């Protein structure tokens, strides 16, 4: 039974990989660390703000990703973040969120 579930999952993953457009398969994943380091100038070393500007270290991936996306699409008003988030693609935002989740 257990083996069957795993087997089905692997098949699904393979199918999902095939379904991706060719570009997404060949394009290298954006480097989350390189993209994120500049954020620390405002959000504090290792994302641990000393106050006034939110800390961003160790936040769940989905939280950072949805915040950045809402800033980028002007769904969430801010001061500078609407302007800065537009400089990153969706894939880059995902990489930033993934990296920040690992920064403790």
């Amino acid at each position, binding site marked *: 039974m257990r083996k069957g579930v795993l087997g089905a999952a692997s098949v699904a993953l393979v199918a999902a990989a095939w379904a991706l457009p060719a570009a997404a398969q060949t394009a290298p994943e954006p*480097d989350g660390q390189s*993209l994120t380091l*500049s954020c620390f*100038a*405002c959000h504090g070393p290792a994302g641990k703000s*000393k106050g*006034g*500007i939110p800390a961003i270290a160790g936040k769940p991936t989905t939280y950072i990703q949805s915040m950045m996306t809402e800033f980028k699409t002007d769904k969430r008003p801010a001061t500078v973040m609407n302007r800065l988030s537009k*400089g*990153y693609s969706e894939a880059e935002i995902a990489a930033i969120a993934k990296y920040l989740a690992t920064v403790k």
Partner: protein
Amino acid sequence: MSNFNISRRSFNRLLGASAATAAVAGFAKAPFAQQAKAPHVVVIGGGFGGATVARYLRQFDRTIRVTVIEPNQLFYTCPFSNLVLGGLRTMESIGHGYAKLRAAGVAVTHTIADTVDTAKKTVTLANKAGTLNYDYLVVSPGIDLKWNAIAGYDEAAAQIMPHAWKAGPQTMLLRQKLQAMPDGGTFILAAPADPFRCPPGPYERVSMVAHYFKTRKPKSKIIILDAKEQFSKQGLFMEAWKTLYPGMIEFVPLSKDGKVTKVDAKTMQVETEFGTKHKAAVFNIVPPQQAGAIAQKAGLTNASGWCPVDPATFESTQAKGVYVIGDASIAAPMPKSGFSANSQGKMVALAIASQVKGKSVTTPSFANTCYSVCGPNYGISVANVYKVDAGKMTVLPGGGVSPLNAPAEFRKQEAANAFAWYANISADAWG
């Protein structure tokens, strides 16, 4: 890349490095010959660029030895030095020491880098303080002022008409002169043509002087004599001045004979391109600038006086294994700002750490946010993300300046952000 991640453990270890570690890495106590195997990075300059690159190198790879050469025991930042003039900050609050960099295992030597031999990979220190061998050299010397580019404006004249474009004693001198000025006096700031350190700086300065006048000397006037037609965040500054300091500030652009070509410190007079003479109670001359002297001596500058670099790595196009960051580098469209230097420093630290580990250098990403404080509750900003596209530093769409006609709450938030930014970037660079 996971081994470059900042884990809590390694970060705490970095911040709280034991005295023993500091001693081993200490400049005088452990001759570098004893640790010949470990790569050695020499960093010239302990400002936003140099301090950042040193901190991040040690964070990425503790086997890398890092030596920072910085003449000052306390580094006074140009960012927020205008707020000292406005009375919003103290001089002490913008001075940063090097104890935490040392605790992170960085050797800091308070001397001047006298000469660089890029073929032999050595840096010779002034006053016979020794010679350092390097595997990688990071040059982050900031700016030098071009004395006599404005006729008569030399170091002696700067004691009477301060530039205050390097923070420290010059900032205090200008503050003293403003304090000694009687109410009803005129303050003239001469602003240079591009490129220069901190493009919005002269206009934030005028805003802070206006704040001081408004609260202490309300009959006083301010004139900006400008060697250019337009300036950074111009619409926003003009809006701020109209709101906060109506009728106090006059802007004279290049086309209205704004370019100061001559100063006479004895008669307290300046002359512009077409012969107009201006008298004032206090002058602030911000002269044309170039890369710090060591960059020129090391053969890193071109005819412009600044240092050409490969934007992807900030490696000098004129010397291999030498990286130039911050104000001294040619990184346009990135401005010459502390934030830019910090952002560039991190990318150079990543590039060097990758090379030391024999890994390929990752795609760099840069950002800059410059806040200008126009009044205690009135801030404006410019914010951009940059990447290298087809070998050129490129600004990405969507960034830019704060909106015009924004509500007071927005301006108040940006002022608060400016203060929070200052605390965080200072900690990011100096600890």
